[in-house]
């Protein structure tokens, strides 16, 4: 089977006198390296310059708050079920009186952990979420020295009230429309016959 036409058959024939002089071959090699002297280096001065990122880059997760600053997550577990890597662990709790400004609905996640070593950044949790609570952002997961530090709890995942994370890039009109398709409604099982043409 021939994959490329760059195949060279190795031969052990005696070198001719010109070949044994080495010099033509040496000159050829030197010309090749010299030509690279004038080529542009593909290296990027990383800390100073960064490569452009895709608009929908799937990086580190964020748990969104609503416009009043209350956490949107209701600990329904859809994301944990959807997660193919089983990276998400949720412990649910009931909202008490006087905590309305903290949690949007009666149920909330008292603990929400994502293991960043397991996570494959597929974005299925984002798709699965019925409350628009979890999103992947363009931020990177930091390097750590300990494996424990890669299990991100709520203190790292929930966005700060005074420092909101912008996720509008991921909520384009196309995405929002897609989520409205009844056949893809999160709480119903997928049935192609029920799917409405979009």
């Amino acid at each position, binding site marked *: 089977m021939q994959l490329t036409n760059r195949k060279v058959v190795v031969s052990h024939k005696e070198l001719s006198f010109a070949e044994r002089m080495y010099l033509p071959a040496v000159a050829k090699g030197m010309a090749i390296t*010299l030509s690279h002297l004038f080529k542009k280096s593909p290296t990027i001065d990383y800390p100073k310059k960064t490569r452009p990122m895709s608009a929908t880059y799937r990086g580190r997760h964020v748990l969104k708050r609503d416009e009043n600053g209350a956490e949107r997550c209701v600990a329904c577990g859809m994301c944990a079920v959807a997660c193919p890597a089983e990276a998400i662990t949720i412990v649910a709790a009931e909202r008490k009186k006087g905590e309305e400004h903290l949690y949007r609905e009666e149920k909330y996640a008292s603990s929400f952990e994502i293991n960043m070593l397991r996570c494959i950044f597929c974005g299925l949790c984002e798709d699965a979420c019925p409350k628009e609570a979890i999103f992947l952002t363009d931020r990177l997961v930091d390097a750590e020295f300990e494996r424990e530090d890669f299990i991100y709890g709520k203190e790292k995942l929930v966005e700060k009230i005074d420092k909101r994370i912008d996720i509008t890039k991921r909520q384009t009109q196309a995405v929002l429309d897609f989520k409205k398709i009844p056949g893809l409604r999160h709480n119903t099982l997928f049935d192609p016959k029920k799917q409405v043409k979009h």
Partner: protein
Amino acid sequence: MIALLIYKGIMCVAVFGISLGVAAYSTLWERKFAAFLQDRKGPNRAGWGGILQPLADGGKMFFKEEIIPNVSNRALFILGPSMFMVTALMTGAVIPWGKPLMINGVTYDLQITDINIGAIYILGVASVGVYGIMIGGWASNNKYSLLGAVRASSQMISYEIAMGISLIALIISAGGSLSVKDILESQDQGVANIVWQPLGFIIFFVCALAETNRAPFDMAECETELVGGFHTEYSAMKLGLFLFAEYINMFISSAIMAGFYFGGYNFPFANELYSALGLEQGSWLISLIGFGAYFTKIVLFICLFMWVRWTLPRFRYDQLMNLGWKGLLPLSLLNLAITIVIEYFRGNIQF
């Protein structure tokens, strides 16, 4: 007497300083040049574009832990790198770096000493340089070091012969004087010796690569086979001396080739340029321009050394010996014979 001592002292310090400075920046330029040939950027963190990298490297070398193996021969272990460094620096003494300078009616040669056997002196010092590697490699009491030392010494002795014979051919066509200054002065009219010695130059260049243990003849170090060869056991500044001396050797070999084959401080139409500028014999400007021309040639040669290193793969050891003894030695003898015939018809030698 005192004036002579001061002048010689200044010359010694200047040659010493230039050798060390050029060697230091060769280490940076080697890495930069390799990076450029490989479409990379090279070191650029220390200072603007990495200009302070040699200082950072030197500082690192000085502050690293010195390790002297218990089983080594301590005195010889220290003697090895020192000797290699000293012999590397000694060769610079006979190289004239520019046209003589005239100050207050006294002519000062830009050369530490003009001995009438300068060319052989260079060969002699180079041959003694083997000891540094051999002593260091043996005193380490490590088989890789010993193998590296044995390879280095046999390689250097083998290539010295072809080098010496091509040098003889050069001396014949340069007028028969062994003094380095006379060889450079013989190219005063702008015709460099390379015109009469093209084959000799190629032989000399290949031998110079082998003598300085540079790739493709770096059998002495040979990281992939001998984990560093003769300097396996060395650390800190003693290792630094070995590595540094290699660059000094490279600088001196470049200076020798640029001087012997490419005219050194002479260049085509130099005398016409000087008279057009209205410069008198012994003017400091003539010395400066000559030194600039020489230095440019040296830098180009250093680039050539590096270019070869980052292009050609290492020879196998038997190939190296075959090339030295069966290739270059007969070739240099042939070159000598051709030279004698040519010089006879040029009238430089009579029978």
